């Protein structure tokens, strides 16, 4: 029964793996690669926000820390980038653990938690801006050296398969989380923290685990970003942009569902590409559109596209009662 829960992931990954066979344009490849990268970042947010109910406004803190960790470890310590990736994910988890330990120990919830994550991302941005170790405001450049052993590839296709493998891993991890005690406890905390405590859930530890997982996963997206663009600066790596994308992607796709971030990311960047075509890549317009999408989604589809699909499916099938658990249903898609 449990194995069947992975069929949809298998099919999705297989379809995505076949895509490069049909795509020849470098631009389209890049679109696919970035959509997957943001799906990974969105999944990281989703674990903490969608499942455990802690809305972070500063996921750039983890993304940027992962990116900077992998860059500095390569530049200053000469570490192999694959090894640096593992270390960078540990750094992301550590940053998550530190922010989480402080915030959750002091019982920060809701808006307060959102604010403090935002503040930490800003602190890290300023630190990266002033520190010589991170290259300061000028940023950090990784020398081009396209070898597989070096996590740099000549072919976009290989980058695509690397990020696809990472996304596949995140999907499997999230699904496994849904079928685990930790996942059940995270949902319980999201729905009602006091009740969870009364039923023996160590809410501090569960939330801490969630933010560490989320931080490490977001950091892995940052690592990938670094390896494909080979350049970082504080305004990019710790910028509000990544924090916004991280939350927007699962909100559009459906929070607390395995496929929400993936769907959300493709839809969001698809819309983004179309707007760029229509308006000619005007600065700011895409983010303005993101803002509008965010409001429209919250207004009309608070459970995201996966929630909508779940409802449509039920309406078509009329097998289950209308009010059946929407998030759960969507998660089973």
């Amino acid at each position, binding site marked *: 029964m449990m194995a069947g829960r992975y069929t949809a992931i298998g099919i999705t990954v297989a379809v995505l793996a076949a895509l490069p066979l049909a795509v020849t344009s470098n631009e389209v490849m890049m679109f696919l690669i970035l959509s997957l990268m943001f799906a990974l970042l969105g999944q990281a947010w989703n674990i903490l926000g969608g499942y455990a109910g802690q809305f972070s406004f500063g996921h750039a803190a983890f993304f940027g820390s992962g990116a900077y960790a992998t860059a500095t470890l390569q530049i200053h310590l000469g570490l192999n980038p694959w090894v640096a990736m593992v270390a960078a994910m540990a750094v992301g988890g550590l940053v998550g653990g530190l922010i989480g330990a402080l915030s959750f120990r002091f019982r920060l919830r809701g808006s307060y938690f959102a604010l403090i994550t935002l*503040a930490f991302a800003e602190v890290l941005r300023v630190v990266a801006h002033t520190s010589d170790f991170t290259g300061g405001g000028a940023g950090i450049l990784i020398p081009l050296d396209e070898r597989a052993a070096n996590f740099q590839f000549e072919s976009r296709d290989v980058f695509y398969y690397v990020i696809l493998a990472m996304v596949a891993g995140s999907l499997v991890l999230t699904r496994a989380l849904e079928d685990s005690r930790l996942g059940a406890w995270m949902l319980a905390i999201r729905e009602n923290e006091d009740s969870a405590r009364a039923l023996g859930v160590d809410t501090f530890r569960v939330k801490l685990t969630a933010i560490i997982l989320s931080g490490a996963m977001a950091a892995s997206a940052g690592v990938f970003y670094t390896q494909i663009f080979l350049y970082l600066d504080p305004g990019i790596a710790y910028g509000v942009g990544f924090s916004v994308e991280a939350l927007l992607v699962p909100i559009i796709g459906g929070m607390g569902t395995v496929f929400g971030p993936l769907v959300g990311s493709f839809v969001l960047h698809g819309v983004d590409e179309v707007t760029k075509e229509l308006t000619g890549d005007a600065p700011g317009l895409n983010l303005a559109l993101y803002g509008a999408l965010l409001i429209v989604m919250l207004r009309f589809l608070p459970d995201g596209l996966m929630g909508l699909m779940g409802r449509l499916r039920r309406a078509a099938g009329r097998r289950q009662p209308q009010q059946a658990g929407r998030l759960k249903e969507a998660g089973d898609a």
Partner: protein
Amino acid sequence: MLEFTILVPAVINGLLTGSIYALIALGLTLIYGVLHIINFAHGALLMLSLFGVYFLHSLAGIDPYVALLILVPAMFALGYGLQRTVIAHASHGKDENVLLVTLGIALIIENLALFFWRSDTRTIDVPYAFDVIDVGFAFLSVPRVAAFGAAFVVAGLLWVLMTRSDLGRAIRAVAKERHGARVVGIDVDHIFAMSYGIGTACVAAAACLLLPTFYVTPQVGNAFVLIAFTVVVLGGMGSFTGALVGGLLIGVVESLGGLFLGETLGQIGIFLVFIAVLLFRPTGLFGDRA
């Protein structure tokens, strides 16, 4: 030991800047106190007001202080409308959603500004911009002293409004007990929108006082929004006195931080204050709610 002649002007300048922070924070704290939401769009609305002042001056030749009479009501109306038409409907009554909706509004305003007006830094040229008065131990910028005084006048007006008028009483009733207020016949949705409108009007006032000595870019709001959050958190969410004192305090902290640590690291000082207050005293200096 730093020279007295450097320290004192730094503190005074901090207080002058702090008064503007206080004004911005007053709006934020009012919105929080009544609607229990953290208004992420506050910085974007400030930026929009600054552009308003800029265009009124550069296109119509209207002095920033005269612009108060136009912008304050205009921004009030915008705020009222935003709450009534967008925020109330999109949030479905959930706090996190309100936060996200105001974030969405901020993104729209900021990036449309970037699209229409590009990221150029703009300033206005008023004859009194560089006037100073000599108070013996320091030279003080006249427009900044005027802003300092005006900030307190606005705060005073707000205080009178809140304590002496029917509207103020209704606002305070809704802030304390929204369900109870509804029961006794107060139009809660109207009061919510009025509060958001007044909060936005505070930002418009701050913009008019700020621009003679400051600049505007589409991103300028970001610099203020976290500072305003810090002030509000430091002063106590929903506390007027807290916003005033917190604003002045943060102004001084920033000024001294810049003096001792340099401009960029000085910013960290503010964030660290922010984080420390959130962690150790989330009710702030003047907050009464646990």
